[in-house]
């Protein structure tokens, strides 16, 4: 490895002074090219968007629990165009629904999981001084930021934000108001951002890994980010193509997604016609199914790191986990149409996608099983990161298992587009991925700040969130099995068959609002611990992977001397060793 010229390793820690010429405030904290600063920018922006997307959902939950009732206090603040007299208009409900999905997926979870953790942790874990293309990295963040601002601004255009669901199905989205155009432009920015990020992650992983760090010595988190980057690289461009086509339909009057003779509000559209609404769905899901794995793979990576560290054992079946991960990556490109069983695309297609969907569940089960077996016989330390990481296992398990009936063509017919689907994928993403992200924040916080987050507040945050998550989502299975559609503005109140399950809507809503209260300790803890948290050394968790050999917080350029890897990532409790962990970089 080429050592930068003129850099002599200082003897003691001199985190901020040792390595670089002083930069001004703007270059240091705003337009920074340092992967750690960019990672933190991504993480904080992602967390803010998560909070915002959660707030949109809390508004929706009011309407679902008490359809047509005036929302006290907040209702009047949102204006006559959205909530006249505090009563939510159906159009506003649709805006909230579409933007909740869009914001949570594209502006919350992915930026935090990939942009945040990927940027901050991956270069440190492979012993790199920075990402391979620091300026591209900065561009990636600012492109994401522009995309986010475009999405936020769309709430204020005439007619409000996009209302056609986060999937923007045609032809509804083509005839929708100008918020949809903003949505499409926002998506183009976000796609550009992930594309730049993905190229950077792959190049960094291949090129900048430390001497001796072969692929099979990668921490599982690095593997997860590596495979995720390929998914982003190859799955997003088709959505970009689809976004261009939809923009053409909306702005240039083409008919890519508009069939001939489409009747809207009693009028036949004058467009040329001849287009295919299903084409949008194919292009959309060709991205959006790999996107599901973009949401879950980094979470699996984070959980694996924390489980190995806190069970003080090597991961059980590391190799089969890695192979499963690669197989998951490949398979995720050939399962997309299982979202489209009900579109009438034909039984042969359905049979094919049903088969691939059943196959892709196998590697997920392998990874989950390996993680569960990893717990066996360990002397487990139940600190906050570990609590969240252990909770991930059953929550993701519930989410995954309830997905199987949806992947079977016949069982999907009654379940499709009901609250069952909402419950299923939220179990994967909310108490699954988001718990893993919380775990990651508690786990790597000492690396980023040199201080630990408060354990008591962490445990309160965990227990409250864990209970509330289940109170929110478990009832949705029941509502969904009763057949209530997920698209209803009144949560099913107009339907006789839904009456026996309507009270569950109230339970879910109170669960969501209570969960918001339990995020307050986290938010307080996050800021309070920057200055007041318990000071820690470089390696507070006695971990083996390379990021813990860097100073906390790591200086510009990360390592005082270029690290080398001499062994696998999880050498915990090695018989005969002096301590119960042997760092990767220890000769």
């Amino acid at each position, binding site marked *: 490895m080429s050592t930068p010229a003129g850099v002599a390793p200082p003897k003691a820690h001199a985190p901020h002074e040792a390595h670089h010429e002083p930069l001004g405030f703007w270059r240091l904290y705003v337009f920074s090219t340092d992967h750690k600063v960019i990672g933190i920018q991504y993480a904080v922006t992602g967390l803010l968007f998560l909070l915002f997307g959660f707030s949109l959902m809390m508004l929706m939950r009011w309407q679902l629990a008490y359809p047509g009732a005036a929302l006290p206090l907040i209702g009047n603040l949102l204006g006559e165009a959205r909530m006249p007299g505090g009563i939510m208009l159906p159009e506003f409900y649709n805006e909230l629904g579409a933007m909740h999905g869009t914001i949570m997926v594209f502006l919350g979870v992915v930026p935090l999981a990939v942009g945040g953790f990927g940027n901050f942790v991956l270069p440190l874990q492979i012993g790199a001084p920075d990402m391979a*293309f620091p300026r591209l990295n900065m561009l990636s963040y600012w492109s994401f930021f522009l995309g986010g601002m475009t999405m936020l601004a769309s709430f204020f255009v005439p007619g409000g934000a996009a209302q056609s669901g986060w999937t923007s199905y045609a032809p509804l989205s083509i005839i929708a108001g100008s918020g949809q155009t903003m949505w499409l432009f926002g998506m183009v920015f976000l796609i550009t951002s992930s594309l730049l990020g*993905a190229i950077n992650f792959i190049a960094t992983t291949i*090129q900048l890994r430390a001497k001796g760090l072969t692929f099979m010595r990668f921490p599982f988190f690095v593997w997860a980010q590596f495979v995720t980057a390929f998914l982003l690289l190859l799955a997003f461009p088709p959505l970009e193509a689809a976004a261009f086509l939809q923009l*053409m339909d909306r702005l240039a*009057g083409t008919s890519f997604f508009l069939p001939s003779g489409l009747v809207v509000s009693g009028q036949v559209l004058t467009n040329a016609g001849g287009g295919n609404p299903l084409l949008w769905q*194919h292009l959309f899901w060709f991205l959006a199914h790999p996107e599901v794995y973009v949401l879950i793979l980094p979470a699996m990576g984070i959980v694996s790191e924390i489980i190995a560290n806190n069970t003080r054992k090597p991961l059980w079946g590391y190799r089969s986990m890695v192979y499963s991960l690669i197989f998951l990556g490949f398979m995720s490109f050939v399962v997309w149409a299982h979202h489209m069983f009900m579109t009438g695309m034909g039984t042969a297609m359905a049979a094919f996608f049903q088969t691939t969907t059943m196959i892709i569940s196998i590697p997920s089960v392998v990874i989950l099983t390996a993680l569960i077996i990893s717990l066996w016989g360990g002397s487990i330390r139940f600190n906050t990161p570990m609590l969240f990481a252990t909770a991930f296992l059953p929550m993701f398990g519930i989410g995954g298992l309830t997905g199987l009936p949806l992947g079977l063509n016949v069982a999907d017919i009654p379940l499709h587009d009901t609250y069952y689907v909402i419950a299923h994928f939220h179990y994967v993403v909310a108490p699954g991925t988001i718990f893993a992200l919380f775990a990651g924040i508690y786990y790597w916080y000492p690396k980023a700040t040199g201080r630990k987050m408060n354990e008591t507040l962490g445990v309160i945050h965990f227990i409250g969130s864990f209970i509330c998550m289940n109170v929110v989502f478990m009832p949705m299975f029941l509502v969904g099995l009763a057949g209530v559609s997920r698209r209803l503005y009144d949560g099913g109140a107009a339907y006789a068959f839904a009456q026996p399950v309507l009270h569950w809507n109230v339970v879910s809503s109170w669960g969501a609002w209570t969960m918001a209260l339990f995020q307050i300790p986290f938010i307080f803890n996050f800021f309070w611990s920057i200055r007041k948290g318990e000071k820690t050394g470089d390696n507070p968790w006695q971990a083996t992977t390379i990021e813990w050999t860097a100073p906390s917080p790591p200086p510009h350029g990360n390592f005082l001397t270029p690290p080398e890897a001499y062994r696998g990532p999880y050498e915990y409790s090695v018989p005969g060793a002096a301590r119960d962990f042997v760092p990767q970089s220890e000769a």
Partner: protein
Amino acid sequence: MEIPYTVEIRRDTGLNNGKIAIWLFLASEVMLFGALFASYILIRTGSTSWPRGDTILNVPLATFNTIVLISSSVTMVMAWASLMRGRFNTFRVYMASTVLLGGVFLVVKYFEYSHKFHDDLFPRTNNFLAIYFTLTGLHMLHVIGGMAVNAYFLGPGAKLYKTNPVWFTNRVEHSGLFWHFVDLVWIFLFPTLYLL
């Protein structure tokens, strides 16, 4: 702090960072145009009538443009080869030709487009024209992007040659890979839209 392997090659991968990045970028571009070609196939097979390209579009002009783009790919390689031999002035001639040929392509395309608009043929007229304008328009954006990068290497970017000729040569090579890809897309577009 310097990032390793921006110029020199990492021994176990045999590559520098930029080479990996440009190939990854091209892979994503393949997916972008692949999705658009797939959309073309789906819309065409689903339509009741579809005009043959040569009844609407100007095949001789497009043939000329094909020759122009292929020539520009040749001059692009020559530009890079000149740098490899250390002949900076020859590089400038070839690079300028590459940019110029890109410009010729755009001018021809401009006449093609304005002729269509003059005949009242717009993207909204029918789906054949819709896909024609979308695909060639996106391709044109790529041509403009490639020209901008190449022009940069003629202008302010050329300063790097004085301080780090190897790095500069690598950059021109990577820009060339992109330029060849743009050329290749056109070679697919030409028969698909004009001849089939």
